[in-house]
């Protein structure tokens, strides 16, 4: 989010226009004294505080021909302020001797119009002895040779031809249209260029003139060339070019004869003849670009190109801007070349790419260069490398795709000042952490599990062991219930535990001394009977026990009740007069054990 916000601020900065800043326009020519049909360069510069500037409007020019020759743009960001300028270059060719004026050239921005000063040119005839290509045809045109044979040949005609019948898509195709005349024209002919649907056209100035002899007849001709770039494969037709010319009536007039003026005025009186001359249509078979071997980054460039890159300064600080210029040079339709894709550079933030175009048409071939300027702002310090920029094109001569690439550029980036590091137009904004790239986080070099996690994982994996607390709890619950029951019914509890207590005393008696053993056996019997009868053992007599036992179980066997009394008295005797051996005690213990079991079963059940 912070990155987006920073980028937003930067973009806002690029788009921001200070209120005081405005567009300016200026124009200049390479020379103001120029011979007729010679060429001069007109440069129109539009500057302003914006990356996108309006295009100037050329006024109507009289006696001057003007041709587009490309443009170049410069963009700079200084302290977050954007400024740019575009230089439009034109080729101007004078058509008449005398003063020629280039009127003010205007540009309109946000409703306001800015204009250049008018430029006055002094157009003169070519100097004596000059043998320029432009001068000769004109002189020759004024003095066409008289017909020399060639009977049956037309006085004037238009011919069109192309230099290649099977060009590739976007390959330059030169169309030449010639207007031939063997007679003097009564006024300037009107040329109508051909319809070229399916082609992108580019004029190839200047208009040329010359002489030619065709089938024995001498002609003066004017030639206009146009560069065509097919936009689609398949057959494409160039429609006829037409010339509307006013020729003299068909009567023998020799411009070089002595009575030329007499005949000329005669013709003027009788009027000329208007001819609508047309060339033949031309059909070319445009070849598609081969599909095999087409590079991934191919964007349609056809011709012969090279690519280079440059940066205005390779040592800079974070937040400072550097301009990377990638230039594609060569022959071909430079206007259609798209910006080569810049590789992603994590340490650098790339801003809007602007292009500038510069080309010439020497020898009727479009060549020049197209530059792409990208402002790069380092986000982090350190060394950074701008990888090679790739550019692919199709070479129609080799009939193959070619991949050109630039050389890598190393940048040395030092930490910038706090104000500059904002890398945007808001130097007062607080510095923030900026995301440079996104990648996985690094390895864990130590185990993550702590003791608590290990313990909890072990608890979770304990399995059946986790049943243990349930067992413990159930045991405690049972014990608790037992105790609760004992509190509520102490007599019953005492009665139910009587045999267990008595048997415990019997076991204790086995290990005790003779005197103690007799006492234990006696206490076992009296204790058992007291517990069963719910009485205190103290003061309980054998007779009373018999009575209570009979009362409890009237159908109890008589010998069993009598055995109680017998054993009671024997045990008392042994307890208080220990004279018999230990062997008798064991027998008494066995008898007591048997008695207790029988009582439990037959009397107290």
């Amino acid at each position, binding site marked *: 989010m912070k990155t987006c916000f920073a980028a937003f601020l930067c973009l806002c900065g690029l788009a921001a226009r200070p209120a005081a800043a405005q567009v300016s326009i200026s124009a200049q020519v390479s020379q103001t004294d120029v011979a007729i049909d010679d060429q001069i360069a007109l440069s129109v510069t539009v500057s302003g505080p914006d990356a996108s500037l309006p295009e100037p409007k050329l006024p109507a020019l009289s006696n001057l021909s003007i041709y587009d020759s490309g443009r170049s743009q410069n963009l700079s960001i200084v302290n977050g302020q954007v400024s740019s300028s575009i230089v439009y270059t034109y080729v101007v060719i004078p058509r008449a001797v005398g003063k020629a004026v280039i009127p003010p050239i205007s540009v309109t921005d946000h409703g306001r119009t800015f204009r250049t000063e008018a430029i006055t040119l002094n157009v003169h005839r070519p100097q004596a002895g000059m043998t320029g290509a432009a001068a000769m045809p004109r002189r020759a045109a004024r003095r066409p040779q008289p017909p020399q044979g060639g009977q049956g040949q037309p006085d004037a005609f238009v011919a069109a031809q192309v230099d290649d019948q099977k060009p590739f898509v976007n390959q330059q195709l030169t169309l030449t249209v010639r207007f031939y005349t063997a007679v003097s024209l009564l006024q300037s002919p009107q040329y109508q260029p051909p319809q070229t649907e399916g082609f992108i056209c580019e004029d190839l100035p200047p208009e040329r003139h010359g002489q030619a002899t065709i089938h024995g007849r001498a002609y003066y001709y004017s030639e206009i060339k146009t560069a065509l770039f097919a936009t689609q494969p398949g057959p494409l037709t160039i429609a006829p070019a037409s010339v509307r010319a006013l020729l003299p009536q068909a009567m023998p007039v020799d411009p070089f004869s002595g009575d030329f003026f007499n005949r000329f005025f005669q013709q003027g009186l009788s009027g000329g003849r208007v001819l609508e001359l047309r060339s033949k249509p031309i059909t070319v078979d445009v070849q598609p670009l081969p599909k095999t071997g087409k590079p991934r980054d191919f964007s349609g460039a056809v011709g012969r190109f090279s690519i280079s890159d440059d940066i205005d300064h390779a040592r800079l600080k974070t937040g400072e801007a550097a301009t990377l210029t990638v230039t594609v040079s060569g022959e071909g339709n430079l206007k259609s070349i798209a910006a080569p894709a810049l590789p992603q550079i994590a340490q650098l933030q790339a801003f809007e790419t602007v292009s500038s175009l510069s080309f010439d048409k020497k020898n009727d071939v479009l060549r020049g260069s197209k530059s792409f300027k990208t402002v790069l702002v380092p986000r982090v310090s350190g060394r950074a490398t701008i990888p090679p920029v790739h550019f692919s094109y199709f070479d129609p001569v080799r009939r193959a795709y070619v991949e050109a690439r630039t050389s890598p550029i190393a940048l040395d980036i030092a930490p910038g000042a706090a104000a500059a590091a904002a890398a945007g137009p808001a130097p007062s904004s607080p510095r923030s952490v900026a995301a440079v790239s996104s990648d*996985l986080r690094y*390895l864990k070099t*130590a185990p*993550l*599990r702590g003791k608590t996690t290990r313990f909890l994982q072990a*608890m979770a994996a304990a399995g059946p062991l986790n049943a243990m607390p349930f067992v*413990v709890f159930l045991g405690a619950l049972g014990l608790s219930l037992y105790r609760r029951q004992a509190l509520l019914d102490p007599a019953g509890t005492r009665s139910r535990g009587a045999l267990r207590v008595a048997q415990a005393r019997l076991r204790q008696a086995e290990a005790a001394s003779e005197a103690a053993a007799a006492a234990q056996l006696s206490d076992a019997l009296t204790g058992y009977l007291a517990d069963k009868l719910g009485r205190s053992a103290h003061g309980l007599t054998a007779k009373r026990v018999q009575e209570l036992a009979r009362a409890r179980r009237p159908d109890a066997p008589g010998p069993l009740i009598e055995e109680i009394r017998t054993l009671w008295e024997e045990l008392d005797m042994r307890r208080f007069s220990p004279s018999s051996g230990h062997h008798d005690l064991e027998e008494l213990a066995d008898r007591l054990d048997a008695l207790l079991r029988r009582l439990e079963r037959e009397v107290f059940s």
Partner: protein
Amino acid sequence: MKALLLLLALCPAARAQSAAGAQRLYDQGDYAAAAVQYRALAYKEPREAAWRYDLGNCLYKSGQLGRAIASYQRAFDLAPRDGDVRFNLAFALRRAGEDLVPAGVPPLLFVAFNVLSAAELAGLHWLGCWLTLLLGAWFLAQPKRRGLLSPCLIAAAALWLIAGSWWALRSWIEPSELGVVVVSTAELRSGPGEAFDVSFTVPEGRRVEVLSKQGDWLEVGLAKQGAKGFVRADAVEIP
């Protein structure tokens, strides 16, 4: 490989050395070799999230997005509180066209709900169970100390209840078994065999719920898309 595993089992110091060696291989860019070592460590210590996380990094760097996500998912299941694990899983899932936090769920709620792993929740549940029952037994056995034991017993019972409810809720909401597509495009067929038509295709790295297993085929479902079908078992890795 067996010898390496045996060595790891015998000597913890060797494990640490192996981790360091794997880290060196990773730093040198030999991700495949590093992955082999981290996989051995993860095999030895299946409950240790770090090795799964590191293995995920190696797999991601070597271009195995699906297997990397499966490894990160396992690490996340083991250590959901670790920020790096969560980040890398979300990072890899984004590349596979999926988000870690389900749509419509506030991220904070997602983090809070997954602050404890399922194993930790189960452990807390059993810990609460032990404490509650043992304190309860003591409570029953020692009536005289009930005043002292009551707050502890209530706290233990609360722990048991909360952890148990949380664990049950997680088990109910989350897929019983999660799988990750590890081939570039997995074809979901209408039945367990090549003879059935392909109903859907699922890209690599997408998490699916494994519903059943039938031989070499898994029945999987994508709840969000409402898709269900059979896919070859080797096309899906279960973390």
